[in-house]
């Protein structure tokens, strides 16, 4: 019998990470009033998920699943399609970035993967604005500021994820997972 690409155990883990992404988005409120600040939690979770299930497509699956969950919960103010695509693109972008930088235990690599994955969300939001005919940015600096926010917080999230992965490895979590698989 052909072996499944993701085992049931791995799918359960990825689904848990997907729900954590949504819970983090709802429950973790930071006093930072800066664009993209939720990327700190978001990207950390996705980077850790991709390390816990080290297969291509793991981050995308977390993104798509969390997108479904978030869309059904009515998160975001652009409608369900925008919410679904925003969440999904974060996962897909992270997977694509990890093709180039697979070692996310490296802080710099994880930071860049986080930034690349997170900017995908901004691209979706921007494109939706263009498609729906939203007015051009009222403040010219607003867009650059927003891009910078998404990149910085995505990178910080990626680095946080890398630190969590290192801590999990030191604690023997990956050896434990290998036995479970």
């Amino acid at each position: 019998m052909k072996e499944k690409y993701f085992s049931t155990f791995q799918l359960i883990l990825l689904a848990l990470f997907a729900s954590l992404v949504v819970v983090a988005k709802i429950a973790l409120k930071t006093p930072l009033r800066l664009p993209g600040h939720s990327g700190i939690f978001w990207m950390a979770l996705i980077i850790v998920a991709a390390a816990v299930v080290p297969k291509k497509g793991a981050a995308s699956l977390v993104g798509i699943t969390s997108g479904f969950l978030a869309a059904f919960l009515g998160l975001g103010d652009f409608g369900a399609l925008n919410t679904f695509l925003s969440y999904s693109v974060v996962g897909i972008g992270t997977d694509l970035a990890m093709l180039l930088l697979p070692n996310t235990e490296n802080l710099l690599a994880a930071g860049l993967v986080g930034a690349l994955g997170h900017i995908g969300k901004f691209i979706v939001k921007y494109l939706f604005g263009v498609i729906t005919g939203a007015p051009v940015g009222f403040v010219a600096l607003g867009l650059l500021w927003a891009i910078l926010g998404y990149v910085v917080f995505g990178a910080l999230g990626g680095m946080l994820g890398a630190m969590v992965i290192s801590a999990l490895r030191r604690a023997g979590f990956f050896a434990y997972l290998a036995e479970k698989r």
Partner: protein
Amino acid sequence: MAQKNRLLIALVILIAISGVLVAADMLRRQAQPALAGNTAVTLTAGSIPIYMDGQLVAGFSPGDLDQLKKASFIEAAEGVKQEGWMLRDILLLYIPEEELRPDTQIVVSSSSRGKSAQLTWEEVNTPENYVMFDLANRGTLKLVSVMEKLDERAEWVQDSDRIEISSP
């Protein structure tokens, strides 16, 4: 490929994406024609037209923000801080207060969202109502308030692009 090269390539991709987004926005800005009403007022891209009884009286532009004091409140539903510029201050930049009566109707709308909010000058002019524009991440303005009809995300007027004032 060495890790250093991979990091450099990723950095270049990140900068390129950011550059393309900024360039696309600049092109979009330039492509948006300046609108002219039947008065001497000309609107520049990104400014919000203010109409009074059907006549274009002003275009609220980014430069005008410097003259205004910022206001903020913590939104009750999500606990998020809303910070921006009071609508009353914006209107008073262009329209003498004597022309605004308590029952003057003010409609703030967003053509892209198909949303609008109808308020009276009395509501807008009450500081405790915090009827104000918050600057959204994309650099567009959203109308928010602590008033019941404007205190939830679904009621906000995101991407506001028109203000209409009509005398009763």
